[in-house]
């Protein structure tokens, strides 16, 4: 042959020869930047930045790992699976990505987003320096100017309208440390209106699951799905939303020849791999689950022993389920009884069986009830607390689990400590801040709208406004908003603007704000969709790939990510920005009292140590930075299925990967973490335990503690309540405490030492002693089939606010108008009006929304990544072939999708497909930048517009909020589609 043949021998030898540029050692990071015009001077003309640097570096070093190549490990910043990202860095430039074979979670693999993640840190569409809007023009400003002006404005607004008039929105893309720091920041500022994306993805899961058995999180792990013999995926499309989880799902399906049942309104990419696909009408999850349970109860397939030992009030569920005969289920949901019988039999009899759900179950006005019904299905069949079973809830963003845990939530403090005096005092002790000072930071709320006034203490203990309602809290009349004043300023960290329903009203809200600050790697929708002229700031924040910190995957494993490269452009990390803002606002000393600050940047490891010191309630106490880093070093030692390292390993022996919480006691105890929650077949020291005894010991004469069920090796061989010093004394276990531990407990308890619990004992003594006795610190209770504190203690079906079946609304109405979380919820009135006006006739198509694999969340970051953007260039609507034919719509043509509120309409491309059934349309939620047919590209600061823009589905989504968490309804509304 005429051209050089690759020699087979040579092909196997690793070449160390690094070509010219790098071998000469002339190209350090500075030189790269200079060459590519990325130095500060050139930043002025940022719009024209030429980003050849990475390519050049790569070219010079090629793919050969040369002596200058440094390998850095971080965690993918997209979904919650927690894939390890392995970066090759040459002279400070991220030049290549290698598969992370050592990680037991992703085993080298990535999805489109993870495989393209290198682009994030060098994207030319990043926000490059702080900017402000001045008379409608974007102006570059310095960081100092930004801190000064924002700080002054915040102070002024606070003085005039109170602390609650500033809304703080955090991010599920934060590291744990940043999430914690921001929650602490919110507390020191004096508000509970501090939220993040969990509100709009799994807040109902957290509420529903925690109210059932203690903790609101995935009970098992992605890897554990490999053990399942039956899996139901309901309202989830992991093939697009969590692609790496499908590795485990499909492996499980293959290894065990498992049943994989997909229940969804849409024939998704996941459904394509199911053994059985059940198409339901959007918003009828409860009828379907009760329909499954009807067959289970009818045939006696339930796990009677499990129910007797570990479940409270299953009989209340039986009564409700009895109403859902196969005929009624089919009438409401459209699913034939015979199919559900098949599903029921498999789930109950071919065990272990697991239930997987995502936002298809949670984003409803009945989200919490949906989730509860799903938990009850697991409980009834005994599919909890064992390998291969459980509620495998796939969370959304990379660290949405961690950010939820660390309290970026309007209803709790870090690690689910309630907004009660005990919770506040606990954190005041950890922070070494006076409780009284904290209280003084909160507003007094005057009496208005017929409601009583609230003192500072009461306001401190009152949940804040949810992020789904932030614009209602700007727009509504002040007397309807249960706080001192409506929201005037909005501080957005790492959160898109297109994520809330009813966008036209959200845009009104944006325009009314006195101050809008967006701190994000990208300008986000907030910067582009409104008609603001002034008082708007954009702060460039680096991605978590450019900083140190830990993140909690959906399976509760915590992984440490190390900084891969320095923050791009002038961007700064969250720690620094929060610290500098706190400095300006005067409480930086309190924010970082026990946290080392180096060069103005709080140290991530120190923040985690503070979390460890206070994180008893959720078992965030054992995951020291040193242990987490050891896990990253020893990834290859963990088992693929059990996630456990061999016991004899010196560094990570016996640990579960990422020390999934709860990881009890101090790090020195070396608790291995809990890979599977509520697993009674394991000793507590091995990660076992029962259900959390969270709801008391008895109700209506029935015990709430487990009966004849306890974890392996437990000294107490029955149910038991959570442990306090008082209980310890009764058991005589107080003698097992060391003098130091005892001293700490007595100091915390003051006059009432008996109330000091496993969750408030800062010494960790109670947890240590519990472990020695083989008992769970949180007790051993029953899971609740009846959660009496929730609006619907036993879940009942309620039609969506915009029901496509008005005739069912009378029988299954949504909940009456109520006030929740400082805001009115008028769902019932809206639903009545919808039925009365015959909206379902004008808007006959059900509109549901969801994810694409290429994009993430609001999509600003991923749509700015050309490798991803190229794959999805147009916002589209999936429309059924039949509906398209009736409307004369062809595949690929422009159509108007109009919604029933605000005369809203969106111009999108038609994707004619049978993925959606007749009368159903689907739109992805990642797009924004077009608004009602108008391209808003020019509104972005020059050069920061994402590569791909499109209509936001939320322009046409409508009213509807879950009564427990304020979750918005995105999965079931109505629309009409017409050719454009």
């Amino acid at each position, binding site marked *: 042959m005429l051209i050089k043949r690759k020699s087979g021998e040579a092909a196997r030898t690793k070449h160390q020869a690094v070509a010219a540029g790098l071998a000469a050692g002339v190209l350090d990071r500075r030189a790269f930047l200079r060459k590519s015009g990325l130095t500060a001077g050139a930043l002025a003309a940022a719009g024209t930045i030429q980003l050849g640097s990475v390519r050049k570096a790569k070219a010079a070093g090629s793919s050969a790992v040369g002596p200058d190549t440094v390998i850095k490990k971080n965690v993918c910043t997209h979904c919650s699976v927690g894939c390890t990202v392995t970066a090759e860095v040459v002279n400070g430039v991220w030049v290549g990505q290698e598969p992370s074979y050592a990680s037991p979670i992703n085993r080298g693999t990535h999805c489109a987003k993870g495989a393209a993640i290198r682009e994030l840190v060098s994207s030319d569409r990043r926000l490059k320096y702080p900017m402000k809007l001045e008379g409608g023009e974007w102006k570059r400003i310095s960081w100092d100017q930004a801190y000064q002006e924002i700080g002054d404005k915040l102070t002024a607004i606070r003085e005039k309208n109170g602390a609650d008039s500033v809304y703080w929105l955090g991010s599920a893309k934060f590291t744990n440390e940043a999430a914690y720091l921001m929650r602490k920041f919110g507390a020191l500022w004096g508000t509970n209106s501090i939220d993040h994306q969990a509100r709009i993805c799994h807040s109902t899961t957290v509420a529903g699951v925690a109210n059932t058995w203690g903790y609101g999180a995935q009970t098992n792990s992605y890897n554990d799905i490999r053990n399942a013999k039956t899996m139901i995926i309901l309202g989830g499309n992991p093939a697009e939303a969590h692609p790496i989880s499908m590795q485990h799902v499909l492996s499980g399906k293959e290894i065990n020849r498992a049943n994989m049942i997909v229940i969804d309104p849409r024939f998704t990419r996941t459904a*394509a791999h199911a*053994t059985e696909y059940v198409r339901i009408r959007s918003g009828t999850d409860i009828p379907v689950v009760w329909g499954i349970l009807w067959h289970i109860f009818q045939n006696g397939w339930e796990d009677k022993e499990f129910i007797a030992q570990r479940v409270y009030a299953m009989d209340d569920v039986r009564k409700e389920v009895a109403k859902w005969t196969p005929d009624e289920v089919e009438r409401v949901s459209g699913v034939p009884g015979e199919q559900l019988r098949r599903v029921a039999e498999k789930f109950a009899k071919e065990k272990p069986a697991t239930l997987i759900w995502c936002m298809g179950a949670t984003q409803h006005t009945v989200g919490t009830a949906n989730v509860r019904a799903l938990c009850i299905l697991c409980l009834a069949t005994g599919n909890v607390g064992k390998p291969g079973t459980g509620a495998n809830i796939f969370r959304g963003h990379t660290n949405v689990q961690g950010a939820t845990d660390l309290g970026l939530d309007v209803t709790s403090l870090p690690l689910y400590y309630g907004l009660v005096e005990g919770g506040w005092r606990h954190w005041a002790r950890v922070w070494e801040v006076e409780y009284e000072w904290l209280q003084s930071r909160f507003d007094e709320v005057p009496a208005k709208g017929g409601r009583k006034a609230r003192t500072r203490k009461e306001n401190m203990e009152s949940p804040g406004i949810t992020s789904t309602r932030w614009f209602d809290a700007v727009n509504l009349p002040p007397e309807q908003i249960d706080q001192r004043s409506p929201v005037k300023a909005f501080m957005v960290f790492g959160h898109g603007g297109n994520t809330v329903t009813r966008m036209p009203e959200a845009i009104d809200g944006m325009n009314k704000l006195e101050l809008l600050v967006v701190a994000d790697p990208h300008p986000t929708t907030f910067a582009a969709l409104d008609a603001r002229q002034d008082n708007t700031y954009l702060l460039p924040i680096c991605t978590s790939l450019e900083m140190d910190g830990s993140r909690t995957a959906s399976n509760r494993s915590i992984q440490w990510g190390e900084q891969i490269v320095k923050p791009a452009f002038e961007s700064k990390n969250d720690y620094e920005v929060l610290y500098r803002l706190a400095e300006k606002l005067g409480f930086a000393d309190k924010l970082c009292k026990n946290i080392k600050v180096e060069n103005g940047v709080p140290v991530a490891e120190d923040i985690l140590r503070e979390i460890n010191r206070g994180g008893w309630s959720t078992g965030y106490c054992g995951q020291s930075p040193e242990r987490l880093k050891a896990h990253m070093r020893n990834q290859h030692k963990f088992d693929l299925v059990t996630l456990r390292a061999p016991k004899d390993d010196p560094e990570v022996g016996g640990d579960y990967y990422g020390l999934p919480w709860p990881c009890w006691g101090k790090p020195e105890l070396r608790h291995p973490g809990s890979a599977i929650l509520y697993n009674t077949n394991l000793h507590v020291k091995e990660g076992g335990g029962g259900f959390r005894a969270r709801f008391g010991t008895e109700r209506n004469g029935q015990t709430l503690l487990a009966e004849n069920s306890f974890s392996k090796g437990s000294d107490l061989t029955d149910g038991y309540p959570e442990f306090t010093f008082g209980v310890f004394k009764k058991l005589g276990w107080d003698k097992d405490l060391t003098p130091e531990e005892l001293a700490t407990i007595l100091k915390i308890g003051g006059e009432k030492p008996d109330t000091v619990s496993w969750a408030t004992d800062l010494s960790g003594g109670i947890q240590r002693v519990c472990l020695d006795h083989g008992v769970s610190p949180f007790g051993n209770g029953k899971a609740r089939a009846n959660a009496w504190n929730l609006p619907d203690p036993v879940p009942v079906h309620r039609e969506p606010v915009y029901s496509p079946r008005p005739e069912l609304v009378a029988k299954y109405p949504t909940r009456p108008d109520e006030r929740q979380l400082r805001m009115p919820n008028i769902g019932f009135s809206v639903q009545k009006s919808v039925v009365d006006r015959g909206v379902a006739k004008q808007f006959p198509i059900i509109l549901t929304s969801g994810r694409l694999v290429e994009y993430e969340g609001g999509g600003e970051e991923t749509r700015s990544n050309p490798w991803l953007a190229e794959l999805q*260039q147009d916002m589209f609507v999936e429309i059924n072939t039949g509906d398209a034919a009736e409307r004369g719509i062809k595949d690929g043509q422009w159509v108007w999708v109009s919604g029933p509120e605000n005369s809203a309409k969106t111009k999108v491309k038609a994707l004619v497909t049978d993925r959606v059934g007749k009368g159903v349309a689907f739109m992805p939620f990642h797009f924004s930048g077009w608004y009602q047919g108008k391209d808003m590209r020019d509104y972005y600061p020059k050069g920061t517009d994402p590569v791909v823009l499109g209509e936001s589905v939320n322009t046409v989504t409508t009213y509807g909020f879950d009564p427990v968490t304020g979750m918005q309804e995105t999965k079931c509304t109505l629309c009409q589609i017409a050719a454009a």
Partner: protein
Amino acid sequence: MRRATTFLSTLLLAVMLFAVPGALSPAQAQNPIQADGQNPMGARPTADSVNEEFLFKQESKIRGRVSIPDGKSANLIQPQGREYQNFRERWLPWIGALVILGMLAALGVFFLFRGRIMMEHSQESGKKILRFNAFERFTHWMTAVCFIILSLSGLNYIFGKRLLMPLIGPEAFGALAQWAKYSHVYLAWPFMLGVAFMFVLWIRDNIPSKVDWAWIKAGGGFIGKGHPHAGRFNAGQKGVFWMVAGFGAAMAATGLMMLFPFALTDINGMQVMQVIHSVIGIVFIAGILAHIYIGTLGMEGAYDAMGSGKVDLAWARAHHDLWVEQEQARTGSGPQLKGHPAPAE
């Protein structure tokens, strides 16, 4: 035998402009449930999965959906490329070599037997008559020059790597082929224009008539003695005209389809176009070789028609008597020119 079958199917492919499913390799049966190729519908997505065999039964290629705005990438497998490869590499070189060398051999044989057809002298010898005006000659030569380059560059696509590349080495050949490719693509345009001009210029004189039949029956004067009657163009020349017009149009049409991929046809269409283009091209080249032969080496005096435009009246009288009469009738004295005692060289 297998070769013959494939060749046949390829020709069918060319003629019928669509793929013959029978010629495709049958896909393997992987899925026992799917072995009968039943339509996979139902609610059991795993059990009902599609496979190659099933899809190839529906269509000759496998098509799906992609999200990128490049429609052609939605074609997953189009096995016709194998048939095309077979034609182009196994058959085309032989067809090309046989036809072109065959024509050269035939002309050689003819030359050996017949020799050069010499001018017959008469009293009109030495007088000139204008046969083609400047524009006609311009058009002819523009077309001819383009044709020669197109032929050579076209043949280079088939034979270059076989004949030229071993001689001059890959780098030089690569550069040469690059220029050949450019010239092929760019000179196609003046060629097409030239063909169009010629068509308009000469169509009037190329309508077949009864005289042509007589001319053919008389063997065109090539065989035996005497000249059959002929107008401005005899039947042989008319044949060349119609060949150029027809083949030229076909080459242009197929060439344009390939030059603008996916404008009018898909990949299979382009494969067919390539087959047609190459086969016609070879026949065309062979035909033009004969034309060149008779216009230069084969017949004394013929070249002048396109050389200077003026031909010897005696030659004209002998070969195109009807045309000479017509011209002389039209101009009275006739267009013969004086003062040129010697015949053109």
